[in-house]
Every structure is written in C-alpha cells, then in structure tokens.
C-alpha cells in the first residue's frame, strides 16, 4: 500500500514537473503535439487516400444517403442526451426525426425530417456531463480520433456504443464494415479542405486546440453567449463595446 502511494506521489511529481511550462488547459502539450503529428501522418498515408478512392467510385447521392443513414442512427442517442440534459421537447423532436426518417426516409437514407422543419440537434454524452457540471479537464489528443478532453474521452465509450448504435450488431464483419464506411464517408466530405487549416494558421496545433475547446464550451451551453469586443484604439484598455444583441 505504502509502495503504491509512493509511486503515485512520484508520478504526480514527475507529471507536475513536466507540465511546469505548459498552459493550464493543456498540461500534456508535448505528448499532444506528438500525437497530433502522428495522426496527421496516418491521415496522409491511409485515411485520405482511401477517402479519395471512395469518392472516385461512389456518386454523390450515394454519399449523401450514407451520411443520412448514419445521421439517422444517431438521432435516438441525441434525444436521450437531450432528455438527460432536461430538454424533453428537444428529445421528443429527435425521436420524431428518427421515426420520420426511418419510415418515410427509407431506413434513414433520406433526411425528410429536416425538410419538414424538424431540426437536427448536436448532443453527445460529453456535453451531457458538461451540463451536469463535470469540468472538461485537460485537452487530450487521442490516437486516430483527434482532439478531445479528459471528460469527453471518458464519455467516449458510452458514445461509441450508443451513439453509433450499429456497434450493437453482433456480426463482427458487418459491424466493422459499417464503422469503416462511416469513417470514410465522414473523411470524404472534408477532402480538399485540410489545406485551409494548414494555410490559415501559424501553428496549426495551437489554433485547432483553441478552436476545439471553445467549441465544446459553446456546445455544452447550447450557446448564445453575449459578445464583447475590446477596442484597443481607445485609451481605456478594458473598455468593451457590447453588441446590440441581447443574450
């Protein structure tokens, strides 16, 4: 027992020392940066070429059907999260979406619900934990999966099982094929765009981290925070100008 406690204390001390220069939201920055660059290399070597080949052999409507199909399977889990976050009306609308698209939308291939003004929501279990008051914790770059936080990583197994409900399919070949199809279809939509992030930033890692963290914060709050913009031309440094919008 004592030994364990000592080891833990040593580990904490080492981590603390390693993190001395890192910003508070990203104590594992040096690990994260390495993983970020590994992910980029894997993408360039494998995912991106596969996605390109996929686009070459499938017509665009098929890719839309595939996107709709997986999107439809996610709606019940989005609804459950809305319920867990105390938003029963949104939850009901998510269930309506699932019913409408699964039937009239031919098993989810068509997104009839959006046409019928039943909007798609964006919820997941990480956001639910956030609404419940769980802090996001440090930024974490996951292998293959990309940016996350400690909280969102812990929510990941729950999301992976329930958000992607085909994971419950028992036939491993079918299950893995579906997972691969979803990943490739998702990646295909972004072909040609990765360049923008490369070009627009001086430090791609830093820009994506700040973006991810702010975006998660915004989503947890289903947000419409009041906007405030400083004017550094004015003498009083802290003067802000509220926008005309009411929060």
């Amino acid at each position, binding site marked *: 027992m004592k030994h364990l406690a000592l080891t833990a204390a040593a580990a904490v001390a080492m981590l603390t020392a390693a993190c001395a220069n890192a910003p508070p939201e990203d104590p594992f920055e040096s690990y994260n940066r390495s993983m970020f660059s590994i992910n980029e290399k894997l993408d360039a070597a494998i995912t991106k070429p596969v996605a390109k080949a996929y686009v070459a052999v499938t017509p665009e409507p098929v890719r839309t059907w595939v996107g709709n199909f997986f999107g439809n399977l996610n709606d019940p889990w989005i609804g459950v999260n809305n319920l867990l976050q105390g938003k029963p009306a949104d939850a009901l609308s998510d269930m309506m979406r699932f019913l409408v698209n699964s039937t009239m939308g031919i098993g989810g291939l068509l997104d009839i619900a959006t046409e019928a003004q039943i909007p798609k929501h964006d919820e997941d279990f990480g956001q639910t934990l956030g609404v419940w008051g769980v802090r996001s914790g440090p930024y974490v770059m996951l292998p293959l999966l990309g940016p996350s936080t400690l909280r969102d990583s812990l929510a990941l197994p729950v999301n992976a099982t329930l958000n992607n409900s085909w994971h419950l399919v028992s036939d491993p070949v079918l299950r893995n094929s579906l997972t691969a199809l979803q990943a490739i279809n998702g990646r295909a939509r972004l072909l040609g765009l990765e360049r923008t992030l490369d070009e627009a930033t001086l430090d791609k890692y830093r820009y994506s981290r*700040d973006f991810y963290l702010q975006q998660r914060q915004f989503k947890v709050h289903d947000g419409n925070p009041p906007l405030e913009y400083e004017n550094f031309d004015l003498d009083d440094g802290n003067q802000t100008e509220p926008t005309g919008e009411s929060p």
Partner: protein
Amino acid sequence: MTKNLFACCLMLASVLFTGPAIAEDVTAPDALVRHVTDEVTAIVRNDKAIQSGDASKVLALVDEKVLPHFDFRRMTMLAVGKDWRSATPEQQTRLTTAFRTLLVRTYSNALTQYRDQIIDYKPLRASPGDQQVKVSTEVRQAGAQPINIDYVLEQSPDGWKVFDVLVAGVSLVTNYRGNFGDQIRVKGIDGLIASLEDKNKSLEAEQGGK
C-alpha cells in the same frame, strides 16, 4: 472531432465572402450579408474554373465583391489582443496588411470548395440604433450536422463592415489570439509580423503556378 473543425473550414468558403453590398440596394446588415453571400455563391456554383481551384480568378472575385465590406484593421486588432496597444502605427499597418493577405488567400482557397450547401438566414435580433449587430446563418449540407456561421458587423461612415465571423460559436478572429500571443512573447511584435509575412510568401510561392 477533427472532422468538425475541417467542416467548419469548409463553411469558411462562404464566410469571408459577405458584407454590405450596394448601399442604395440594401442598407440593413442582414440584407447585406444575404445579398453578397448569394451573389458570390451563385458565381462559384457556375464557374468551373473557380471550382477547379483557379487562384487568380477567385482572388479577383473576392477582391471585387467581398473585401470592401470587411474592416481588416479591426479584425487584426482583435486577433492580436492587448499587445496591439504597444505596437507603433507602422507595425499596426504591417500587421493588418499581413493578416489580411493571409485570410484572403486561405479563404479564397476555401471558397473554391463551395458546392451545394444551403444557407439559412435567421431573423435579425437588433434594435434600430445598434452600432454592432450579429447576423446569424445556418449552413446545411446533406447528411451532416448544420453549422452556425455568424457575422458581426459594425456601422462605419461608409456602411456596415464585417469584423468578426463565428463558426459554430467560435470567433475565427479572436481564436488567433493565443497563437499570436505566443509569437509576440517569444519574438516580439516584429517577430509576429515576420512570421506572417514569411507564411504569406511561402503560400504565394506554392500557388504561384496557378
């Protein structure tokens, strides 16, 4: 998750390309955003050269239709943060020019990726006397989560000017602040200017042939 970020970059295709249009036509900020977005996306949708990435053609389009409606000085100030105040007027001008070049070049490229996304305009929530307003839009793409893109405009003597764009709730302008702050801490304001100018040079060299 990276997907989200990239998807947002896609939406930038339509982002920088909005703003107040012809003054006597449209004077309300939301009408202006809609007018310019519709005009520019219509051009891109029908122009094969732009869709295949013709850099000079898309830059010309952006230059003519979009840039007049942006306040790049204000954007740069917000991206730099409080260090802006310690910059000399000359440094401020160079920062603005370099940042403007970077944004215009990269987002012109993003515009070439625009295809068939549908842009919904949300009702404007503002009072008549407001000097700053946010125009909210939602970009829908078949088979994907819709993405909110908001434009923040400020009244200026020659019409409304866009000075910030929010993608999925995140300000693309102030999101540069951490990155720029790092540069300034290590290399000073001149160091940041040099980094931006170098970046622009290397991008220009890459695209030079197009």
